[in-house]
């Protein structure tokens, strides 16, 4: 049985890069429900890592700890060299500008148009721009996700796949260094799922991001990730490339590849 826990492998493309996210010995529980127990992970610059796990295994909890929406019980989370759990509000904001977070539920603001949704993070992070510039930026980002025509629509008027793209555009508009995707293809049909995966790849190249992709959709993971981390029983149970894990004979790992 080959489970790799604390030894973190070098990335698939053997470049020695500094890590952008480092997680060590992370614990998080809700009451008696131990969700994360001794989870460790490293994401290097330019790398795309997928976190694979069953529903309810704590994937969303993990990603929310990284962005500082949830406080871990113990353990260390470093994002771009900053210890997220110990930062005050302003310091956290400075990190969050550089980290894009695509919510599992999209979390588009229902009461705002697509344009206002995209402008919201820009305005909020004090990015100084004239109205013309910010409008250009909105249009350019929308074009990148192929939805320039929806700029004046309300989120309720869009389909699920379109909403996912708009949510992606909203996180990209700040040119993040790191992208965190929480189940980007769940709830979409396979074709739309493929399109979103493709878009994520394009985005990664175009904006030169490192990304952490949380999913249980193998097709999406195969298309987008260089390395897979398996989150089982609250810890990093195994990691490696798709092919490596597929050859793994551990029953808990195997069930994901059937």
């Amino acid at each position, binding site marked *: 049985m080959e489970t790799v826990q604390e030894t973190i492998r070098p990335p698939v493309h053997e470049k020695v890069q500094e890590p952008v996210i480092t997680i060590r010995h992370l614990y998080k529980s809700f009451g008696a429900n131990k969700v994360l127990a001794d989870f460790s992970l490293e994401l290097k610059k330019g790398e795309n890592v997928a976190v694979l796990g069953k529903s309810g295994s704590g994937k969303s909890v993990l990603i929310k700890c990284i962005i500082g*929406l949830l406080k871990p019980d113990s353990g260390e989370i470093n994002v771009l060299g900053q210890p997220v759990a110990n930062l005050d509000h302003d310091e956290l904001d400075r990190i969050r500008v550089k980290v894009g977070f695509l919510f599992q*539920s999209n979390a588009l*603001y*229902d009461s705002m148009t697509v344009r206002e949704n995209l402008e919201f993070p820009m305005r909020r*992070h004090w990015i100084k721009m004239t109205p013309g510039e910010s409008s250009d930026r909105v249009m350019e980002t929308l074009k990148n996700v192929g939805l320039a025509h929806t700029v004046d629509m309300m989120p309720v008027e869009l389909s699920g796949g379109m909403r996912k793209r708009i949510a992606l555009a909203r996180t990209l508009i700040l040119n993040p260094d790191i992208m965190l995707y929480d189940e980007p293809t769940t709830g979409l049909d396979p074709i739309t799922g493929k399109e979103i995966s493709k878009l994520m790849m394009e985005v990664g190249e175009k904006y030169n991001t490192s990304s952490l992709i949380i999913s249980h959709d193998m097709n999406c993971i195969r298309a987008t990730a260089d390395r897979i981390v398996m989150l089982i029983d609250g810890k990093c149970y195994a990691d490696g490339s798709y092919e490596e894990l597929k050859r793994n004979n551990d029953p808990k790992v195997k069930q994901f590849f059937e």
Partner: protein
Amino acid sequence: MALPKTWQSFLDETGDMSRFTGRFFAQGFKPRYEFSEFIHQCFIIGFKSLPLIGLTGFIMGLVLTMQLRPSLIDYGVESQLPAMVGIAIVREIGPVVTALIFAGKIGSSIGAELGSMKVTEQIDAMEVSGTNPFKYLVVTRVLAATVMLPVLVILSDAISLYGSYLGVNIRATTSFQLFFKQVFDALSFSDVWPAVIKTFFFGFAVGMVGCYKGYNSRKGTEGVGRSANSAVVVSSLLVFIIDLVVVQVTDLLGIN
């Protein structure tokens, strides 16, 4: 010492709500100020409830006048009708009825709106977009409710009195000037200002409860419905409790 479960959850809830209110005072007056959102909310909160409050105010004034007349005739003081109605409306009925309608309309809509933003993770999305959602959503709405309810009460009082004027004219005739002269002669400053002061507290309570319920909504659509519902129940109850307290306090202070 074990308290019964219902008491325990009541006390928990009261504690949570007090902490939430404490957070409002701790964060609400520090920069950065969400001024444009505050103005926007004032417009929404004030404007949305205006037709309903105007209509109910009008009916209240009219009906109250028609109901009071027979008794006043019995006592032979029919001429005091405008004074009676004026005092009743300005001191008690206007503020309380308007606040209750406000609780039903605005309390539930704030509860449902924040509740659905909570369960669809929009509040978390704001947080990661560099916005303090507590300031952007809660502080603005609470302040807007606090400022707008007194305005609505004054408008509602005026419309009620107009309704009452029409009510008087159903069975008798009085001129507009005479009616309002009688009303204002009967009212003194100490009738008006405690009534206005308490409306600020009513507005604050409605805004605060609506936000608290929405902000702490449980997952799922059922949670949103329950937030909206209990926002109305709790804030209506608080309106009466605050009314009771304010009457006692002004009585003790000798302003009545």
